[in-house]
């Protein structure tokens, strides 16, 4: 019993209770505002017929592909920008200009360029993660204590060693925080993108369910989105608490 997350369970229980009460006494019909029991039944239904799995996998696939693309391109670029002042002067204004343009605004162009399906969604996720990661990376690089560079020079570290032994480990704590936030944004974006541009995924499930006037399925979709989002965040949190990352946080 000791390892049960007691407090979260209590608060979820309270939320479900409030939901049940609101659903019962709100005056809305069960079609418009289904209560928790109905939704749980529909949840079971959608698990059993494989729909939930299919759409969850589709959404997760897109987020994973787009996010990792953003990470593998964004972090190196961020590090380079952080180290070369001239590059920062050149690229920063452009980055800060494109970054606030909501990925959703890119949907029309994305659909023209990539069609319908996984590709435009992955592109949108990429956009939503790339710019924040580049910025977080160069800010992290700039805040590295200059003493570490002096130590590196003192011990004749090569350029490769400077990156692998100094820069990357130094920025990992800040980056993990940034990645945690960025992946949350990506998860939001994928759902929105799927409502517009795609034929599968949890966002699409919600849209499709609404068109079929099945609000209970809509809520199932929402709950699954919340659960997966929570699991992603918890995973990132545990990564951020690993021993070497915590140790490196002391500046």
């Amino acid at each position, binding site marked *: 019993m000791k390892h049960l997350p007691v407090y979260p369970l209590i608060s979820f229980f309270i939320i479900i209770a409030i939901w049940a009460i609101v659903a019962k006494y709100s005056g809305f019909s069960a079609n418009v505002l289904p209560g928790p029991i109905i939704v749980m039944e529909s949840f079971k239904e959608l698990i059993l017929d494989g729909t939930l799995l299919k759409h969850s996998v589709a959404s997760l696939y897109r987020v994973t592909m787009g996010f990792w693309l953003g990470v593998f391109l964004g972090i190196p670029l961020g590090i380079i920008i952080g180290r070369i002042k001239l590059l920062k002067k050149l690229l920063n204004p452009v980055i800060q200009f494109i970054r606030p343009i909501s990925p959703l605004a890119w949907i029309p162009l994305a659909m023209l360029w990539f069609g319908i399906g996984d590709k435009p969604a992955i592109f949108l996720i990429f956009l939503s993660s790339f710019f924040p990661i580049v910025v977080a990376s160069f800010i992290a690089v700039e805040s590295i*204590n200059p*003493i*570490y560079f*002096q*130590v590196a*020079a*003192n*011990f*004749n570290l090569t350029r490769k*060693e400077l990156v692998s*032994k*100094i820069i990357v*480990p*130094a920025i*990992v704590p800040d980056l993990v925080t940034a990645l945690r936030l960025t992946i949350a944004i990506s998860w939001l974006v994928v759902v929105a993108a799927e409502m517009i541009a795609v034929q599968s995924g949890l966002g699409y499930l919600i849209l499709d369910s609404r068109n079929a006037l099945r609000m209970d399925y809509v809520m199932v979709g929402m709950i699954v989105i919340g659960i997966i989002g929570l699991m992603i965040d918890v995973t990132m949190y545990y990564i951020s608490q690993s*021993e*070497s990352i915590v*140790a*490196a*946080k*002391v*500046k």
Partner: protein
Amino acid sequence: MGKIKIEGLTKHYVNRRHKRRDPGDENGYGKIINVFKDIDLEFEDGEMVCILGPSGCGKSTMLRIIAGFDSATSGTVVIDGETVVGPSPDHVFVFQQNGLLPWMTVWQNVELGLRNIKNEALRNETIQEYIDMVELSGFEHYFPSQLSGGMQRRAELGRALAVNPDILYMDEPFTGLDYLTHLKIREEVINMHTFLGKTMVMVTHFIDDALIMADRIIVFNESPAKVILHKKLEYSRPRNIEKDPGLSDLRDEVFMMLGVSYVA
């Protein structure tokens, strides 16, 4: 192996915020702040040199220039006949604080200078030797944040000594240590110097430390810093300031020079 010659060393900064032209200054950028001007010094091989001065007088700046991290406005630093153009593992710098890489364990930090030894057994043996030398046996796999201040300082010394440098530079190495640890580490550094015979240049503002540790003591006054005292101390070790009248008088003199007239 560790003979340092400093000639005409000058360093100034330009404060761009203060645009008023000084008479005789050739650039219109701002006010020139002289940190020090035309410093000439010579240290012999194997000496423990202590550079003493009030905070902000430029002694740390000078040490960084000597070590090659910064460049002087004019003048040269020549070590064993070669002009210093940058840092090198032959002349290792021990920082005031935060010199240890926090994402590496003690072992990995000490390994930093030894990473190019191809023979793994030899490398591990050497790393262990230096960790034992600074009395951190058992703490090999601790991260710096898990160590006390004194242990961190020892780890950094271990890392520095592991590359067997000709010269060790120390910038206020006892910063942040409690009194007892300070005294203990001070004793360990003195023993290290006696045992290894390396040239050591230490910047400090602790007058007693300089008197107890140095073969050569150099005192600076405030910015623009000038040498107001330069003396070789030939007292035998271990030294006791209270019991040796020569040292005791010197202490009074230095305190007076640095503007502290009542000596505790």
